[in-house]
């Protein structure tokens, strides 16, 4: 017990020493100059989207996950990284991290990737002051991900690896956009994204939850609704009569086929209700990080099969190798893509 207390106390004494930093100064997404230590060896991710980006650049530098990986997620990572400790999250909805635990992990840098709104920028400044550890905040939108990689690469002293990821990610986004451009407006089906076990929650225009749909230039039936996660009446959905339904909830995916109300939609009638894969991180919606690139390929293939004549298996293999540093086995690929609903009924 006593030993457990000594370490954080010692660390607190070390704070002024840590303040003498000499690394390259890099502006984060809020324009603040972040100046980390000359050599960044340990990075704390403030939320799940930050974990994926840091892990992709330099898995050995991630000090822990915000939430311990469950077995069905852990199998997609090299063993030594899958077993990294759970450190809690500083941002995102609800904060579960203990600042002492963060200190005890001795990070050289704290990184958050996601929203850059004022409250999170303030939190970054506050935690940086409190801990003496530089805290960088980056934009988590898919479009901003290459820039986030480049800035993080400079901060972490991993420019070549980060640049390779940034360039690859840029190429993927450009490829997706080029394919979307080939799809004429009248060939774009009306899509409804259903969340929750009853499928009655959705994301309105500009909501981070439907960023993948916006990247795909898809017709989100709920675009008229305000941004953010909202509940909609089923009658409204019947009025929109979506041609394709995408969901992240397996309960809803099963329910859609039997519930008479959902069966009245064109999507169910034409058997076009799809369930997004969710391992190790969600493909379509959450966590709202770079992991959603796979969701864009997946949804692109579902919505515009002609323009997206891609091999999804290859895409998954490529993404996993770059981001999770482990190529999935054929059996894992089968499990991911063969789950009922992922490629249709």
């Amino acid at each position, binding site marked *: 017990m006593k030993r457990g207390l000594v370490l954080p106390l010692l660390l607190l004494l070390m704070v002024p020493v840590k303040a003498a930093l000499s690394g390259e100064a890099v502006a984060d997404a809020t324009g603040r100059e972040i100046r980390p230590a000359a050599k960044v060896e340990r990075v704390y991710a403030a939320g799940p989207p930050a974990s994926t980006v840091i892990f992709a650049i330099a898995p050995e530098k991630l000090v822990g996950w915000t939430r311990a990986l469950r077995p069905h997620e852990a199998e997609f990572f090299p063993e030594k990284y899958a077993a990294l400790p759970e450190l809690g999250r500083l941002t995102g909805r609800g904060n*579960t991290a203990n600042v002492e635990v963060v200190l005890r992990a001795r990070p050289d840098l704290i990184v958050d990737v996601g929203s850059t709104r004022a409250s999170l920028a303030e939190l970054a400044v506050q935690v940086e002051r409190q801990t003496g550890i530089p805290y960088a905040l980056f934009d988590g939108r898919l479009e901003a991900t290459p820039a986030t990689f480049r800035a993080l690469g400079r901060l972490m002293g991993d420019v070549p690896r980060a640049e390779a990821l940034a360039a690859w990610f840029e190429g993927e986004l450009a490829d997706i956009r080029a394919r979307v451009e080939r799809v004429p407006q009248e060939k774009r089906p009306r899509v409804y994204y259903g969340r929750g076990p009853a499928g009655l929650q959705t994301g309105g225009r500009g909501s981070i939850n439907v960023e993948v749909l916006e990247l795909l230039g898809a017709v989100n039936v709920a675009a008229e*609704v*305000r941004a953010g996660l909202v*509940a*909609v*009446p089923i*009658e*409204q959905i019947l*009025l929109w009569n979506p041609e394709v339904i995408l969901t992240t909830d397996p*309960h809803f995916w099963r329910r859609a086929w039997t519930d008479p109300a959902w069966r009245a939609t064109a999507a169910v009638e034409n058997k076009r209700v799809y369930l997004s894969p969710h391992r190790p991180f969600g493909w379509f919606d959450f966590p709202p990080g770079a992991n959603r690139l796979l969701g864009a390929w997946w949804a692109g293939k579902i919505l515009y099969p002609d323009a997206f004549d891609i091999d999804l298996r290859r895409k998954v293999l490529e993404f996993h190798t770059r981001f999770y540093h482990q190529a999935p086995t054929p059996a894992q690929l089968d499990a991911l893509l063969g789950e009922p609903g992922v490629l249709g009924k």
Partner: protein
Amino acid sequence: MSVRRASYLVAAAALAGLAALAFGLGRYPISVPELFTLLGAKLTGSEHALSSTAETVILQVRGPRVLAAMVVGAALAAAGTAYQGMFRNPLVSPDILGVSTGAALGAVLAIFLSLGILMTQAFAFAGGLLAVGLVYAVGSRLRGHDPLLALVLTGVVIGTLLGSAIALLKYLADPYNELPAITFWLLGSLAAITPRDLASATPAALAGLLPLLLLRWRVNLLALPDDEARALGVDTRRLRVVVVACATLMTAAAVAVSGIIGWVGLLIPHAARLLVGPDFGRLLPLAMLMGAAFMLAVDTLGRTAASIEIPPGVLTALIGTPFFLWLFAVARRTW
């Protein structure tokens, strides 16, 4: 015509009018002639020319939801009436012994474990019953106090404990997926009602209501001090168990399908009492009519006013508060 009789008539007429209106209103446009065509065709078993979507909307979506709103409103109001009579206190709501909190904990646990809608409802129902069972078991063992006071205090204390268990689960929940689902459940909504939900909630609510109706005269005696009631030959202890069990059953049945909906069970009985006085036998039917009408009005507004759902908890307070203040100002009867 007496105020009492007028109250029943007005409440019944309002409920009937609202129900007709609620059937006709919705985001999916269905005209009144179409509605009658459909209902006529269904009653006579003949064919109709309406789209199958229109039929689904009426029979599978709007119909069950309108009926569920009435059942939930009536059940919450009836439970509130029973408790307010038993505890001799107009500030008592159906949640006083922890039924809603217990149901919420059950539902939150099921969502936390990603068990799906059916299990969420089952957990909520069981959670509500278990919570009150626990409160009653503990509260009735606390000797040397006024039994009602002991019960209420135990309810408050255990309710707080369950509340912190809910808070803990929310804290541990996945912030992107489970937490929003929990928040939406706790806000309460009839949006996901299906005919099956109606078929499971209604019998449970009726099972709670029937004994209360049969015992309506005796329930009045619970308002008397215990020794006086006993002098009249009523076993107050046993009667109290029955009332608590019935009110709990009704509330749990409602909350399991609707989530937490406040206000109705607290202020509707009070409003009804302002109109017809405290006699349980007179009060119960009026409170149920008013509760059903009120819940129906709120839910209809919530599902039609915008292309998103407006949570009933928000509307109950928004509509209910001025209505209640108005009623309080015009009615002269007191507790």
